């Protein structure tokens, strides 16, 4: 059933069955939402999660023959059932799913860290360093220039004087540097890909999370006087950043050591432990204003590289894989502001397209400078196009820090991220398939069943 497998692909009958069930479940929810007013918002959230889980799983299976990644199916299921199309999941419900999303993101970050092998990173360090340098600089500079050049198409930037325009463009450039760890891990989880492209992309995307946070603090410090004449250049944001980064790394290390000790000594009911960590630690981190994504990533990294328990952690988290990714991406789809996208799609497409092009150029240049193998020179850019929660989170910070342009900036960010969110995973999966890094082995249906044999 998984499109990752080259064995036992589901036939037409199975797809017809999936389509019928999808229509059936949607019809049921459509009837209930139209026939009975919702008197208990919280309770409908339960049905919404259930429906997103099923609809996401079924849609991803239906899109399998087209070679589209599961994430795209989850997103489409979310968009279709969201508040702007079928309204099976309303805005209130989407908002009330945010704790579940936080949990999903924590688990995704933990997986990301646990998948990072220090040895593999060391081996690819030259390529990674070049890619990080070139991608960050090139994307920041060229996207900034593109934004300024395209100002006549951007309603809120059209009439800005040069200095504030440069400030906004620089913020846009910093936003463009962000990638999507969730999308990368979602694709890798589905395809079970292994090889230089998978390793490089994962390492780059996870490390760039830290780089982006630093970059954004620097950009904030530079932009503030440009957007607010009363403000002056200040290093305050660096002090806060240092506190955040060191705190997150310290806490992540502690958490990682505790998880490793638990896995070694107890090694039971890890799912419940992960839930406790996801909810409990996220709340503590939120209170301390630390970066939860970084903390969980460091924790996973420590378990993987400072103990022998990494494979156990990855195995446990993989068991929750579909549930976590479906909920995260289907909710992201349902949260997608379609009217806004309809309004801003030309400029969003322009900005997303130019970012993808710059990423491609940067990747080719970095590959050449680092002497990367051909597969990386050709495809390394493909995993760097996706954007999702991190970019949206940063746009919220920008909106909060710079209220004068905040709302309009965020709207444009949402529209552009939507484009990247849809296109990025497709490109990355295509690249993994073409570079033959996608695993041909299908995961067993039940623990008692062995995986099907390798072809040949």
């Amino acid at each position, binding site marked *: *059933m*998984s499109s990752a497998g080259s064995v*036992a692909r*589901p036939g037409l009958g*199975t797809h017809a*069955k*999936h389509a019928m*069930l999808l229509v*059936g*479940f949607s019809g*049921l*929810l459509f009837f*209930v939402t139209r*026939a*009975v*007013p*919702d*008197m*208990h918002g*919280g*309770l*409908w*959230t*339960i*049905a*919404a*999660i*259930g*429906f997103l*889980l*099923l609809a*996401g*799983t*079924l849609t991803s299976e239906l899109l399998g023959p087209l070679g589209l990644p599961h994430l795209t199916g989850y997103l489409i299921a979310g968009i279709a059932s969201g508040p702007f199309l079928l309204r099976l999941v309303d805005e209130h419900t989407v908002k009330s799913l945010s704790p579940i999303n936080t949990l999903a993101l924590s688990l995704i970050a933990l997986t990301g860290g646990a998948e990072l092998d220090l040895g593999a990173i060391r081996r690819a360090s030259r390529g990674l360093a070049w890619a990080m340098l070139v991608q960050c600089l090139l994307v920041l500079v060229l996207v900034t220039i593109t934004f300024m050049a395209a100002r006549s198409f951007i309603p809120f930037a059209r009439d800005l004087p040069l200095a504030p325009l440069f400030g906004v463009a620089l913020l846009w450039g910093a936003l463009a540097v962000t990638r999507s760890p969730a999308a990368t891990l979602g694709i890798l989880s589905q395809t079970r890909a292994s090889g230089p492209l998978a390793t490089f992309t994962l390492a780059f995307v996870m490390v760039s999370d830290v780089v982006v946070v630093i970059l954004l603090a620097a950009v904030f410090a530079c932009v503030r006087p440009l957007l607010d004449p009363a403000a002056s250049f200040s290093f305050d944001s660096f002090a806060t950043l240092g506190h955040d980064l060191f705190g997150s790394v310290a806490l992540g290390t502690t958490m990682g050591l505790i998880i490793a000790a638990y896995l070694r000594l107890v090694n*039971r*009911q890890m799912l*419940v*432990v992960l*839930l*406790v960590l996801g*909810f*409990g630690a996220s*709340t503590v981190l939120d209170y301390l204003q630390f970066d939860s994504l970084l903390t969980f990533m460091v924790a996973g990294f420590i378990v993987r590289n400072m103990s022998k328990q990494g494979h156990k952690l990855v195995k446990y988290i*993989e*068991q*929750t*894989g*579909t*549930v976590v990714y*479906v909920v995260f991406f289907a909710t992201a789809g349902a949260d997608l502001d379609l009217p806004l996208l309809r309004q801003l799609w030309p400029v969003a497409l322009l900005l997303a397209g130019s970012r993808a092009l710059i990423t491609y150029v940067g990747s080719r240049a970095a590959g050449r400078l680092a002497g990367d193998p051909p597969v990386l020179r050709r495809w390394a850019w493909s995993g760097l196009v996706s954007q999702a929660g991190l970019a949206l989170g940063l746009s919220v910070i920008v909106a909060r820090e710079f209220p004068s342009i905040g709302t309009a900036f965020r709207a444009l960010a949402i529209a552009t991220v939507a484009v990247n969110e849809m296109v990025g995973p497709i490109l990355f999966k295509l690249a993994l398939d073409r570079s033959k890094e996608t695993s041909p082995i*299908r*995961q*067993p*249906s*039940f*623990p*008692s069943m062995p995986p099907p044999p390798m072809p040949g």
Partner: protein
Amino acid sequence: MNAVLLLVGLLVLSYLGSFLVGGRTVRGAGLPSGVEYVALGFVLGPQALDLVGGDMLASFEPVVQVALGWLAFAVGLDFGYAGDRRARAGNLALATLGALVTGGAVAGATWLVVRQFHVGATVTEQILLAGGVGVACSETTRHAVRWVVDRHSARGPLADQLNEIAHTDDLLPLLAVAVLFSLSPATHIPMRLPLLEWPAITIGLGLLLGAGAALLVRCELKLDETWAVLFGVSLIAIGTTARLGLSTLTASFFAGIAVSLLSKHGKELRAMVAPTERPVLLPALLLAGAHLSFHDNPKLPWIAVTAIVVRFAAKIVVGWILAAASPAARKAGGLVGLSMMSSGALAMSIGLAFALRFPGTLGDTVLVVAALSATVGEFVGPPRLRIALKRAGEMDEAQAAPSSRRVPA
């Protein structure tokens, strides 16, 4: 108490609960009804220490509904089976008859008390109250026999029969809940349907969703996708029935039955879901305890005492019926029915479902009676079960001491 702290606390409890289902060293620990967690919930709840306040309980309603629905789904998935074995049809019939006799007797007696003291504003409320108390008192907890058998290493035909009865007496109470809920349709529902159509919709919805899940699981889904399907179907059943004001328990139970019957992976699915039952149950029992309120109904002591005494008597009668039908039960003596006094998970779930669906005197009374009945059952059921098994020759004196205390050879 902070809501996240409570959630983490519940998860920790769930974690501890998970240890009670696995491993011989801890099997048989705790009480079969889990009533100690109800007591803990009561102590933490708004009626005692108020660490878990009323507002927080209200905000946790979705969590409670999910827990109840998942438990009912697990019960449905396991319905008709005692362990790995399919229960015999005769025992299924005896279990259903036993639930009917016990629940009917308790409901009838409660009805008389309710009418006598004019509890409830309308006749419908009085029927709901009497019916709810009857339904909550009708079951024997599935953990009771296993608890004694595991703790005392008892084996034999009577132990098997009682185990099968305890595993198969859930059908009638859950059907009755669906009927009772339909007596008072939620006020926000614009549709008006004949009385029996609501229960039919509840059951139909459960079966339909379960059949859908079974169809999906029949395909070669990956393990984590199977979890997604089971969670998804269960959550849709819970959410839609809650929105329609129907019985979440009944719909989830029938969804579980449909999955078990129609999926070719029934055994694997039962093995997958069974370990989740206890971890979900303990937080649910704790929240049920926190919902307990003794102040709303001044006639509560009368209702509770009547229900418990009549339940006691009805179980004796059920024992006679059992003895008439089974030679193994005959050997255990005339009071064998009292060995089925333990109630717990399902009774508390029904009580909690009533408390959530009919907040106030009605729901609170059903929940309190369910909790008190489980507490009394705890004092009577396991000791009587030990006596019955000893008389039937399935547990000797040496085994009467808990097996966990014996020094290994």
